[in-house]
């Protein structure tokens, strides 16, 4: 039993609670935040290695045997997400030191970040469907707090839509979980997978799966459920936008991968055409939205939507190759998207506005920032040999292997339009002559540059080390689909039906 799986949850939770109590001591709160996040990062890295070496890690909350208690399961996908989440949070915290004002720190900015980390980490580790719902709510409400923190009119307006639409998604999740409990009588994902695989007439299950598709799809920002994202993501602190932009939609994708890859395997095959259509529409609508925007963060926000489509495509291909590419793409996107928000945000922070019209001159003024942007945006577009290329290539290969010509065509075309709108930012913010006199503008210090530089470096490393990254993604994808071994790992060799309620050790 891998009881250590609780650590990346307890540490942020207790840190956040303690930080809440001593919130006035900014220095200590920062130390706590960094320490807890570092712990999670280190733990995540260790877990990556451990899982590669010894396979899935499983433990039971309160020791109750699965499927009766709540199971924590970490596989390759969990570990990837865990480590990236911690990395993003760490980078965001670093960026926040330079950008977030003291009043927000007083109002629980760092505790909320840690609680978001707590919620996300829990969502990546749980092996219980209802527990996943709880984790989703934790990370959602933490994100609610962060997105409205500051209380500007835009935050309140955008936040209201963000909150309401996400709550609708949550309700769908709750209903879906309830229906599934009604139909299958259990909540443990391994047990659910075991039971659902024996259902002959699965049509009702398909309907139930629909609730999860909508619930996770709305969290992931799939069409037509993404509206909350572009309306709110450009309103809060840049650091918050960056973290959300990199992370939150991917929790939805993670849940799609996990629940549809494991629990609803046969439903996945049935829903695959729908998922591919949704993926294609999401790519297109997102990139069209991005083309229309004239504000750095709003362009990037629409790009999130577009790229979530690629990840959904990885699922819709219903193959290990497809999911491998999807996971690779997701890992790439988490890093690069955050980097872009941080860099664009730094330009916004320095210029004082994110409106393209009123920006400019950054290439001459801040060449380092320009270089980072160039690398990150080419990575996003999928220019080889940066990370995005491998994700895109993997999706194209997997799609062609299954003769899904249309989605491959859409995916390729959309990346051209992605390039177009990234060039728009580059032209307007960096290449164009400065809109106003920049001589009084503050210089980008290490505090603004370093966080993005770290992420860009990670992205480049992931590109050069594409082989091991891909290998790990493949391992993760196989583990997601391998329900037989999941059942064995969670419930023992005889399957979940044979387990009796007891404290296991």
């Amino acid at each position, binding site marked *: 039993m891998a009881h250590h799986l609780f650590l990346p949850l307890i540490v942020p939770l207790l840190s956040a609670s303690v930080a809440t109590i001593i919130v006035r001591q900014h220095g200590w709160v920062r130390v706590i935040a960094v320490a807890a996040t570092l712990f999670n990062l280190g733990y995540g890295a260790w877990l990556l290695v451990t899982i590669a070496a010894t396979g899935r890690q499983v433990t039971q909350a309160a020791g109750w045997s699965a499927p009766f208690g709540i199971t924590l399961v970490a596989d390759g996908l969990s570990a990837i997400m865990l480590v990236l989440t911690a990395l993003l949070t760490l980078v965001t915290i670093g960026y926040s030191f330079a950008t977030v004002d003291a009043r927000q720190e007083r109002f629980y900015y760092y505790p909320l970040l840690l609680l978001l980390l707590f919620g996300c980490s829990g969502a990546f580790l749980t092996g219980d469907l209802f527990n996943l719902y709880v984790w989703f*709510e934790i990370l959602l409400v933490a994100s609610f707090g962060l997105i409205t923190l500051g209380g500007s009119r835009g935050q309140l307006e955008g936040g*209201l839509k963000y909150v309401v639409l996400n709550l609708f998604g949550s309700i769908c999740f709750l209903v879906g979980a309830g229906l599934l409990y009604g139909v299958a009588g259990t909540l443990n994902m391994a047990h659910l997978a075991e039971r659902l695989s024996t259902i002959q007439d699965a049509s009702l299950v398909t309907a139930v799966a629909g609730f999860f598709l909508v619930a996770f799809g709305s969290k992931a920002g799939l069409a037509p459920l993404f509206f909350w994202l572009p309306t709110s993501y450009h309103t809060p602190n840049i650091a918050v936008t960056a973290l959300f932009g990199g992370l939150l939609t991917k929790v939805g994708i993670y849940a799609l991968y996990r629940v549809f890859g494991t629990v609803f395997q046969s439903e996945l095959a049935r829903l695959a055409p729908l998922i591919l259509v949704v993926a294609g529409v999401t790519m297109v609508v997102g990139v069209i939205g991005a083309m229309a925007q004239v504000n750095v963060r709003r362009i990037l926000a629409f790009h999130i939507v577009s790229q979530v489509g690629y990840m959904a495509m990885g699922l819709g291909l219903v193959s290990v190759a497809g999911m491998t590419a999807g996971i690779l793409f997701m890992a790439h996107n988490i890093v690069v998207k955050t980097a872009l928000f941080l860099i664009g945000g730094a330009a916004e922070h320095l210029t004082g506005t994110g409106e393209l019209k009123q920006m400019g001159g950054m290439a001459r003024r801040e060449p380092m920032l320009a270089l980072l942007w160039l690398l990150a945006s080419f990575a996003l577009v999928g220019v080889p040999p940066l990370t995005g290329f491998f994700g895109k290539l993997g999706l194209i290969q997997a799609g062609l292997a299954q003769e899904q010509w249309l989605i491959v065509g859409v995916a390729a075309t959309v990346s051209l339009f992605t390039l177009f709108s990234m060039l728009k930012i580059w032209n307007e913010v960096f290449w164009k002559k400065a809109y106003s006199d920049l001589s009084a503008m503050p210089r980008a210090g290490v505090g603004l540059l370093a966080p993005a530089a770290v992420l860009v470096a990670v992205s480049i490393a992931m590109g050069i080390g594409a082989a091991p990254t891909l290998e790990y993604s493949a391992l993760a994808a196989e583990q997601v689909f391998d329900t037989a071994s999941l059942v064995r790992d969670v419930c023992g060799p005889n399957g979940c039906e044979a387990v009796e309620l007891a404290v296991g050790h």
Partner: protein
Amino acid sequence: MTLILSLVVGTLFAGGIYLMLRRSVVKLILGLVLLSHGANLLLFLMGDGLIKARPPFVKPEAGVAPPDSADPLIQALILTAIVISFGLLTFVMALAYRADQAVESDDLDAMTSTDRL
């Protein structure tokens, strides 16, 4: 009774959704309230049947709760869901209140500035 309660669930969802499609923030909140009521009631239907007067308590003489008592697990889930939705709904209320204050209107259609192109 399952059928009747299913229909009741349906009306809760229909009413909730209809309210959420209106323009008033208060109706929006009430719509969410109805939706979460609907979800809770729906969950309740997913237990082991609707059982009257046999709550899931351990009978002292038997040492176990009767197997035909109401489903304790679904009740625990609903309890969790009720409390969670209480927290979230309170958040929505406060947020809607602040938005209403900042925009000076309780008309949701007036809150479109972040999407304006």
